[in-house]
C-alpha cells in the first residue's frame, strides 16, 4: 500500500487532499484475502458455535470457538447390557434390507426436530458392542449393521457404504456358548454438497439384521431359529462441514 504524500513547497489544492484520502479509503475498503499475511487470523477471531454448519440449537450442540467439534452424539451412558437391543429381523443379503431392527437407543434426531444443516459433508462414526446371541449360536451366522438417514422428513436412505458384517464365533469361554463379544467401529461420509440450499437432517439411524450365511446345518433362510444377536452398547455421532456460502 502506498500513498503519494504532498511535497514541501507545493501548493496543496483541496482536490489533491481529497484524492489522497480516497486512495487510503479505497485501499482499505478493497482489502482482500491475498492482502493479508499468513497467520493473520486465529480462532480467537471467530464467533463461537459457528465452526460447524449448523443453525439453531439442537440437543448436544457443542458451543465451541475451535474449528471443529462433535455436532451431536448419542447418550451412550444409558445404553448398556441392561438395555440390550435384540436383532430379530433376518435379511436375505448384504444389500437388501428387507428386514432390519432399529438400534433405537443410538438414533440421533435432535430431540425430534432434526438438525438444520448446510450442504457439505456429514462425517459419521458409530461403534457397537455385539455382546451375545440369545441362545446357543452357530458359526455360520452373521450380524449385519449399518447407518441410514432421512433428509427433510423424506424417505429413509440406507448409507450402503456403512454396511458391514461380523461372523459369529464359537466361544472358547466355557460358561456361555452364546457369548460373542465383538466390538465394531466405522467412519463414513454422507456427501450433501450437491444440494442447493440448507436442509434438515431429520434423523440418523443405526440398523441391524441377522444373516444365516447358508443352509448348512439347516440354518438357511431369514427366519432361522429363535437365536438373535444382541447389541449391548455403542456410540453414534456426526460432524457436519459446510461447503457453500448459502
Amino acid at each position: 500500500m502506498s500513498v503519494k504524500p504532498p511535497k514541501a513547497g507545493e501548493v496543496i489544492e483541496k482536490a489533491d487532499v481529497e484524492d489522497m484520502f480516497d486512495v487510503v479509503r479505497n485501499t482499505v475498503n478493497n482489502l482482500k484475502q491475498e492482502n493479508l499475511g499468513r497467520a493473520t487470523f486465529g480462532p480467537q477471531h471467530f464467533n463461537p458455535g459457528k465452526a460447524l454448519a449448523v443453525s439453531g440449537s439442537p440437543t448436544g450442540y457443542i458451543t465451541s470457538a475451535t474449528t471443529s467439534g462433535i455436532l451431536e452424539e448419542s447418550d451412550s451412558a444409558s445404553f448398556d447390557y441392561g438395555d440390550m437391543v435384540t436383532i430379530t429381523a433376518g435379511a436375505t443379503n448384504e444389500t437388501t434390507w428387507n428386514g432390519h431392527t432399529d438400534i433405537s437407543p443410538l438414533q440421533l434426531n435432535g430431540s425430534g426436530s432434526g438438525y438444520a444443516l448446510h450442504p457439505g459433508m456429514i462425517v459419521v462414526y458409530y461403534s457397537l458392542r455385539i455382546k451375545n446371541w440369545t441362545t446357543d449360536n452357530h458359526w455360520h451366522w452373521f450380524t449385519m449393521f449399518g447407518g441410514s438417514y432421512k433428509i427433510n422428513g423424506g424417505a429413509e436412505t440406507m448409507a450402503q457404504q456403512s454396511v458391514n458384517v461380523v461372523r459369529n464365533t464359537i466361544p472358547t469361554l466355557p460358561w456361555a456358548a452364546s457369548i460373542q463379544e465383538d466390538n465394531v467401529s466405522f467412519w463414513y461420509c454422507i456427501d450433501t454438497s450437491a444440494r442447493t440450499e440448507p436442509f434438515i437432517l431429520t434423523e440418523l439411524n443405526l440398523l441391524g439384521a441377522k444373516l444365516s450365511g447358508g443352509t448348512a446345518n439347516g440354518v438357511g433362510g431369514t427366519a432361522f431359529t429363535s437365536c438373535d444377536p444382541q447389541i449391548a452398547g455403542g456410540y453414534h455421532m456426526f460432524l457436519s462441514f459446510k461447503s457453500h456460502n448459502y
Partner: protein
Amino acid sequence: MLYFPYGLYDSDVADPDKVANEFQEAHRVASDTCQYQFQSQAFNHTDLERGTHVVVMSAGVQTGLGISSTGPPVLTTANADLFQIPYARGLQEIDLGSDDWPAWTSEYPELVFVTFSFQYAEMAGWAFGASPPLEIRPRVRISIDGTIPPGAGPAARSMDGLERGTGLPGLTAVTSITTMAFLDAGSHRVSAMAGQGSAAVQAAAEATDEYTAWLTASIDNPPVDKVVIGNRQMTVIRFARGGDLGK
C-alpha cells in the same frame, strides 16, 4: 484496522509536513496490521471461503462379502471388489478399484485427521464345515506419504515368538484405524496397507483341511485366496494452519 486521518478543517492552513505525516501514519497502520488489531470473535466461520478452512476427503470401496441367506461369503477372486491380502509379501497398498486414495497439494501446513474403516474377513479355519482356526494374523496400517505412523493399526511385532496380539485374530472384524499428523505445505497422499504375517497353528493336529494350503505352499507360490478386506472407507479431515502449530 481502520485509520481516520484528521484532514483539513475549514479555514485551516495546509501544512505539508502535517499532511504528509498523516499519510505516513495511514501507511504504517495498514502495513503493520496483524491479527491483534482484529476484535475478538470478529468473524463468522460460515463466512469463510469454501475449502479454505476445513477440507473433508473421502474414498473407498462399497462392497459386501457376498453373503446371502442361502450361501456363505464369496471371498475368492470371483468377488472382484474384495482385496485379497497378500501372504508373506510385507505390507502392500490396498486396492481401491475405480476410486483413488486421497491426494492433495496444500499451500499451507495442515493438521490432518486420518481414519481408515474396513471390513475384514477370512475363510480359513472355522470355515463352513472346515477346521479350527489358523493364526493368520493379518496387519492393516495407514500410510501417509509412504510412511507408516506407529501405533495405528494391528501390526505389533511379536517379541516372544508367539503370534497372539500381532494382528487381527478373528474370522471377521469391522474396525477403524485413526491417526493424526501435522503435514507441511506441499503434496501429500494417504492410503492403507495390508499384509499377512506368517501363519501358525496352535497344534500340529490342527494342520488339516483349508489351512493346509497355508502350511504347505511354497513361499514363492503363496496362497492368495480368502483372506480379504471388504467394504472400506478412508476419511481425511484437513485443518489448515497459517503457521506452525502453537504459533
